[in-house]
């Protein structure tokens, strides 16, 4: 019994160490969304005057960002920020923050 348990665990450790099976990649969505956190707070939970964006619907966030980018929504700095992101990137960011509690 003891060898039965230890053997697979030992093997699995080696699998992880080679990084071939279990090691997970950090997603693009996380990379992109982290850059919003310095103004909107970690995970979008702003402590101050800048709007919190955690838990907002993905539809609301993506539509807002596209409207900021196209100058169809009043903004100060957000139009300038949104100009740096593609539709696909906006979607990834929107889904990330909508999933934050």
């Amino acid at each position, binding site marked *: 019994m003891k060898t039965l348990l230890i053997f*697979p*665990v030992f*093997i*699995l*450790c*080696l*699998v*992880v*160490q*080679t*990084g*071939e*099976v*279990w*090691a*997970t*990649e*950090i*997603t*693009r969505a*996380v*990379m*992109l969304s*982290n*850059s*919003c*956190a*310095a*103004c*909107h*707070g*970690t995970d979008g939970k*702003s*402590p*101050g*005057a*800048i709007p919190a964006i955690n838990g907002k619907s993905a539809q609301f966030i993506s539509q807002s960002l596209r409207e900021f980018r196209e100058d169809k929504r009043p903004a*100060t*700095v957000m139009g*300038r*920020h*949104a*100009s*740096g*992101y593609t539709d696909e*990137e906006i979607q990834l960011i929107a889904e990330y923050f909508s999933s934050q509690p």
Partner: protein
Amino acid sequence: MMKNYTRRKFIKLLGGTGALLSAHSLLTGCGKTASAKVVIIGGGFGGSTCAKYLRRFDSNLDITLIEASSRFITCPFSNMVISGMQTMDSISHDYTAQTDRGINMVHARVQEVDAAAKKVTLNNGKQIEYDRLVLSPGIDFKWDEVEGMQASDAEVIPHAWQGGSQTILLHQQLTAMSDGGVVIVAPPKNPFRCPPGPYERISLIAHYLKQHKPKSKILVLDVKDKFSKQALFMQGWEKLYPGMIEWVAGSKGGRIEEVDVATRSLHTEFGDTHKADVVNFIPAQKAGAIAHHAGLTNNDGWCFVDQRTFESEVHKDVYIIGDASIAGVMPKSGFAANSQGKVCAAAIVSSLRGVAMPDPSYVNTCYSLLSPDYGISVAAVYRYSEEKGIYKTGGGVSPIEADAAYRLQEARYARGWYDSITMDTFG
């Protein structure tokens, strides 16, 4: 030998994916990142953010943050302290949140980095080994670029370009000055920490003088011919402080060649001598001392890095973020350091796991206050390519034609910005 095993063989060996999944929970403590040691030198915007995001990316890492001070005093918003709008407490941050998330805080100075042996030696003699080392050492000063000044003279002529006692000293000198006095601000040459910072400082000193010493003047002796958000600053100075600020460009006599510390006199390239009641001379800059000591700097005093990962071009497994690094078109700012800290954390965790890191995305946002109700900003989004390094994909500055309501809103956001970035970095 293990590397020759294929995934399929493992799965067969263990009786299918079900066995793999159920056994996965037993793995804590044996993955490659589990025992990996990441040591970070410098607990400012870059280092603190990197430590926090390393932990968020990987709960098993052994992370040590080495910072001499038990409280970090930010350069952002220190101009508000200098002009009497805020207290030192309001720009001071401790490291309890880092300790709470299991980061080893070491309050000491680093004496030596041994990149070959992968260890750092502290000033108390203690040695710490690392698998990956991050340096976020901020800036040091090039005192020899003008005659007559050395580091100790900052006790008389403060630079106030690192938060702390220098911030208090400049504030005290301004409050001690009598009405009708002259303040000289001498911004540094490029590149330097916080490009709009000297001009925000000039604005907020003007704000202080306008209220308390309205007959006083500010003379700006600039080594440069242009500066960050220049049109916006000059428009604001005209509107808020007409006749109070005189800016002299480098080519028009702004370049200082010699400082007479005892008399607070500055001799320019054109042969003029300017004497002032308060002098804020901000010296030319270079990477923080430990980067030089570790042999990571170029001839100009900054660190070449792989701009995708921030790994040093000199030493493997050593990363440099923040002001000390050469990060393409990104400015040297606390915000840029925060952004780089996250990208670097992702690069380190990915490399320890042996997986690809996601394409990096970086950002910078700098607000400047010209008065409590008048804010302006510059923002940029960046990506990386092998040909261009870090390049800009979007951004811009506040519009020149904006109304008072817009400036007020940006002043509010400037405070929100501070609350958020300090929470994202130190909280």
